[in-house]
């Protein structure tokens, strides 16, 4: 997606700061699927995820001056906004922890190839690679990254010791990293 850009990140940031609608529109077209995907993974409800996506882009538009290029790329920043907004929305809905677990289990279905109709073609290989992560490792990444659970919460929810959560988490991320590297 970003690879097909005709604007550099610096141009995008400048455009947003200059309140350029065209740049905003371009930004939306190129990044909204990834950010909407994050919101959907977190919330698993299309209406709420849509509201979150709208909020995320208004935040991007309103707080572009707070973006600090030394801390990471624009997409990284936007992704953080999307994840945090979605998790806040999830918390405000007072989802119970067991609901989060069910959501994660349901999300596993989305990884079935026949259901994953929306996957970007250039990422099909990659998602296959992610599927190779063991289910327990993927569950841990999903709970932590997409549900905003703390390590203590995961330990309680999955009934495993805190130390095991930490090592499993690290292994999961390391393994994911290895899989992603093979693909890229």
């Amino acid at each position, binding site marked *: *997606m970003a690879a097909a850009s005709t604007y550099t990140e610096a141009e995008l940031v400048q455009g947003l700061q200059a*309140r350029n*609608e065209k740049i*905003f*529109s371009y930004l*939306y*077209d190129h990044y*909204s*699927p*990834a950010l*909407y*995907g*994050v919101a*959907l*993974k977190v919330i698993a409800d*299309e209406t709420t995820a*849509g*509201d979150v*996506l*709208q*909020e995320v*882009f*208004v*935040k991007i*538009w*309103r707080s572009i001056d707070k973006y600090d290029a030394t*801390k*990471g*790329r624009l*997409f*990284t920043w936007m*992704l*953080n906004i999307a*994840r*945090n907004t979605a998790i806040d929305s999830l918390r405000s809905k007072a989802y119970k922890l067991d609901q989060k677990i069910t959501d994660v289990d349901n999300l596993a279905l*989305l990884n079935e190839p026949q259901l994953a109709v*929306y*996957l*970007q073609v250039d*990422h099909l290989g*990659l*998602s296959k690679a*992610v599927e190779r992560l063991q289910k327990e490792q993927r569950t841990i*990444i999903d709970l*932590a*990254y997409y549900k*905003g659970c*703390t*390590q203590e919460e995961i330990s309680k929810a999955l009934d495993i010791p805190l130390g095991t959560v*930490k090592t499993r*988490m*690290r292994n999961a*991320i*390391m393994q*994911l*990293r290895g899989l*992603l*590297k093979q*693909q*890229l």
Partner: protein
Amino acid sequence: MDINHYISSGVLESYVYGLLPEDEVAEVEAIALQYPEVKEIVEDLQFQKEEFVKCYAVTPPPEIKARLMLIIRNESTPEGELILPQELRLNNPVPQSPASTPVVKMTPTAAKKKERRWKFIAAAAIIVFAISVGVNFFFATDTNDYKARYEKLIAAQKQITDDKELESNQTASLQESEEDKKLIKDPNVIWVKASGYNTHPDGAVTIGWNTVSHEVYLINWRLPIPPEGKQYHLRTITGGKPADAGILTITPASNGKIQHLKPSTAPQTLVVTLEPTGSTGAPGQAEIYQVAELNP
């Protein structure tokens, strides 16, 4: 610091996946600035995480983009502010839900087309209205039937005129004085969209209260021009006691602009009433048009 040990501790992975508490986040960011090799690994991890996230990309429904473009186009107008979720408004906090706010959605080119269409509709309505008056004259004996039709047409025509006025008011509101524009974004001013009351069901005004200077403001969008011998009053109600907050200026030119009214120390409810000119606010004389609840 043994930087290799730090790198292999897993803290960078946890940082990139958002699992660290805030103080540790700041620490990682400080170290990344200091050690280029750490920064490089963090960027690498971020890039990989982004690729992972893109696996789950889904195209969002198209109406979200349309809504967003409308929001950013109107973000500095009061009506635009009201489209936004409460926590994103510049003059946070606003105590009333924006859900019931009627919003005229249009793009500049659509506006022109719409204006032309309105002209046709207005002309058509006037012709139909004139015919109806004539018919009404001929069939004066059939008053019941024709009276109802006549009233319906008056109402329809009024709606068209009102809508047209609202449209031009929104353009007018863009040309407010700089000082008034600042009030819209002033965090000390609470803006509330009033609701209609009884036989006047539509919200027609936005009311503001300055929590510091206690000034009361009102923006009229579509209150009808008061009939001869009557005028609109704004009254505040605090602890059940009503107080006069001043008389509203309702002319086509004043619509969409901020009117400054009498200050009030802690208004709870604000009511717009239509009363005979020179009224003392005695019960029975006032007809309530608009109500706004203020809960600072």
